[in-house]
């Protein structure tokens, strides 16, 4: 075990990583076996200190309920947290997340899953919509209940993560038993030695998940800005702050995906000046208004959300990322080898340029 003072959130932890994703534009659901396979050739990009997956469309029978995935240190924390949950939410189902014992995965916390909906009376009293309510409840649990950590909180989607290599984490969570129209995955190479499961990726808030490879140099500028708006960056990781930025820009500020991309990976002023008038005005405007949310330093991220995903590189493209296609499937990964591991016949393999978002959407009504 690691020393307690090195637990996630106590120190800032930059990491290098592997990311991968697959999505069906037709909304066809796939088991988790493919995405696990894609992580194997990138084994060297992780160091066993964190791996995880996000699956979209995995809980169709509970599609109207928020699925909370929570790590607990022990049963007394669980009962404390459940008391809070019951006071503000209706819990329609509570259960252990099924896992498989593996020698490679040890020291697991208690891993629970709840399908919940906020109590109408509470929403009315607080004058909040259900998304904002759930987001605040997650912040509250993660910052005030020591030993409880909500790591997934969206509808009809879920995050599965652990300390270990990603391919082992996938087997541990029995992802072959889930079917999703979109999977994202992450293998972590932190430059510090935390031993905490909550620190693995993807990082999630509501249905937005981020997997990220890189180390952003703008971290504290981004963090100090986003914390003005009720977010608490408890983990001191890049992925956490990027997730909050995506949530803030899209859910709270109403920006589209491409607008979000032009904030966090804003084109250089010299590039903006060469664009047509209307576009120039718009990008200058966003860059000026949200200047503190520009992210610098190397990153490749995949932002997952209900019905799609967006991949984005930093504007200098300091991290690798490739895209491939086959029929209705789109693949994204740190390396082409990861794509070939899922689909050896993948076509149109290309590397998007820095700052150019790749947006893939599932056809309307198919998710």
């Amino acid at each position, binding site marked *: 075990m690691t020393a307690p003072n090195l637990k996630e959130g106590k120190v800032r932890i930059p990491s290098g990583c592997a990311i991968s994703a697959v999505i069906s534009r037709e909304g066809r659901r796939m088991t988790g076996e493919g995405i696990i396979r894609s992580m194997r050739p990138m084994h060297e990009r992780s160091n066993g200190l964190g791996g995880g997956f996000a699956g979209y469309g995995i809980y169709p029978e509970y599609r109207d309920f928020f699925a909370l995935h929570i790590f607990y240190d022990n049963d007394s924390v669980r009962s404390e947290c459940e008391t809070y949950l019951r006071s503000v939410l209706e819990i329609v189902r509570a259960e252990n997340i099924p896992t498989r014992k593996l020698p490679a995965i040890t020291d697991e916390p208690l891993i629970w899953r709840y399908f919940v909906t906020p109590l109408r009376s509470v929403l009315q009293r607080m004058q909040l919509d259900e998304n904002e309510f759930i987001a605040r409840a997650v912040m509250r649990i993660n910052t005030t209940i020591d030993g409880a950590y909500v790591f997934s909180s969206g509808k009809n989607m879920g995050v599965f993560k652990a300390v270990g290599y990603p391919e082992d984490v996938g087997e541990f969570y029995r992802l072959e038993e889930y079917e999703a129209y979109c999977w994202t995955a992450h293998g972590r190479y932190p430059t510090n030695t935390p031993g905490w499961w909550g620190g693995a990726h993807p990082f999630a808030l509501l249905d937005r998940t981020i997997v990220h490879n890189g*180390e952003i140099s703008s971290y504290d500028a981004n963090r100090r800005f986003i914390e003005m708006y009720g977010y608490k960056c408890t983990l001191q990781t890049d992925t956490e702050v990027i997730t909050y930025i995506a949530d803030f820009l899209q859910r709270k500020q109403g920006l589209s995906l491409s607008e979000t991309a032009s904030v966090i990976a804003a084109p250089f*002023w010299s590039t903006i000046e060469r664009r047509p008038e209307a576009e120039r005005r718009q990008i200058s405007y966003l860059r000026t208004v949200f200047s503190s949310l*520009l992210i*610098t330093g190397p990153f490749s991220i995949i932002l997952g959300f209900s019905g799609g995903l967006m991949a984005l590189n930093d504007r*200098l493209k300091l991290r690798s990322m490739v895209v491939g296609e086959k029929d209705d499937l789109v693949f994204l990964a740190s390396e082409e080898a990861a794509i070939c591991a899922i689909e050896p016949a993948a076509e149109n393999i290309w590397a998007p340029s820095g700052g150019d978002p790749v947006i893939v959407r599932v056809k309307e009504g198919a998710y």
Partner: protein
Amino acid sequence: MGISYFAPEFEVIRNEDRCIQCRVCERQCANEVHRYDGDLQKMFSDETKCVDCQRCVSLCPTRAMKIVKSDCALRENANWDSDTIKEVYKQAGSGGVLLSSMGNPKPYPVYWDKLLINASQVTNPSIDPLREPMETRVFLGKKPTRPERRPDGSLSCELPPQLELSMPVMFSAMSYGSISYNAHESLARAAEELGIYYNTGEGGLHEDFYAYGPNTIVQVASGRFGVHEDYLNAGAAIEIKMGQGAKPGIGGHLPGAKVGADISRTRMIPEGSDAISPAPHHDIYSIEDLRQLVYSLKQATHHRKPVIVKVAAVHNIAAIASGIARSGADIIAIDGFRGGTGAAPTRIRDSVGIPIELALAAVDQRLRDEGIRSSVSLVVGGSIRSSADVVKAVALGADSVYVATAALLALGCHLCRTCQTGKCNWGIATQRPELVKRLNPDIGSQRLVNLMTAWNHEIKELMGGMGINSIEALRGNRLMLRGIGLTEKELEILGISHAGA
């Protein structure tokens, strides 16, 4: 002549082997230190008048001159140091308030020198500014809390008025009157060439300089000198001067001797009359009054100009800044206690106010705690001495800095700290035509451009080292700073960790 109770501070040393009696030193010294005795065919010096401005040293063609600190010393005393004793002698002789100029010279901590900057190693690449774009462009002004959209869903793209700077530095306020016409011309031309701004100070805008309006910040101070509608509309922004770091809580005084025809016309006051700026604005006795002035100025300029409110860094600066941010100001300028001045009472300059580093850290954090940091930009000055200070200020949370002393140094100032006498041998802090003409605006503006160009190169190098390629990603990025030799309390106020942690 009464007894002089103390020896002159400096010795004028002339190497007689080198001196060719060309009498340049005599002609160059407005303090009348040097004198030629025709009978003896020899140069003599009256060191009691010497202020160590180094003009004679710089101009002597045979390098025969040097000015050194006199070693004629009072008996050492750690409590009663010689400056303190001499000040007592001076006041016992004059019965007056001691006057000084330029910034606080006392050995207070300089926090900039206790902050260290980060660099990338291994996990994150540093960026070479010679190979990759490195952006230092800054927009100052209020940012909307939420983007506006038109009915068709497209972004409105309408912003409140902004100042666009090519680098996060502006020339701080120095009035025409406190400095010369040629000094102003040098600043104005350099600001235009650099794509930044200079500031008129409180003395109005000379008619010749309206041409530089797009790069000018016009100031409105408690004396309202030279303020009229055309003046307000001439600049790119308006600054309300509430206070100044060198003399918080007091006003200003330009002696009538300096108010010649040109200054009289520019300031709109009679020739030869003293120009007195009251300590407070007499229409601003509280924060709601400030709001009225901010909006009056906005109306007078059709809401096209950002309004800056400049205050001195004083004890309660965080709450004051929060009040200003809520009063409609677009930009807050904070001036630290080491900021310069053309004249200030010595006791005020040396004992009132707080360091800008602490004020900046406290204000930036307070505005964030209140969720209003985006509604206002922060500019800090007093004293920013180098590009490293600029980078540290931005990392602590400033949008931009103001520099004045460094700009004057570029123009030739040697920090002799006697601006108040009006006898500046370098043609900067004087109105005497024979002295003013010594400052050539062609050369002066070029030296200012050189200095800022050099700083911008250095800022880019430092940013590249940190793996940051745009200045906005540095702003408030305190993780890029570490303290050295600071107490827990100082680190807490600065919001940074100690080196090694």
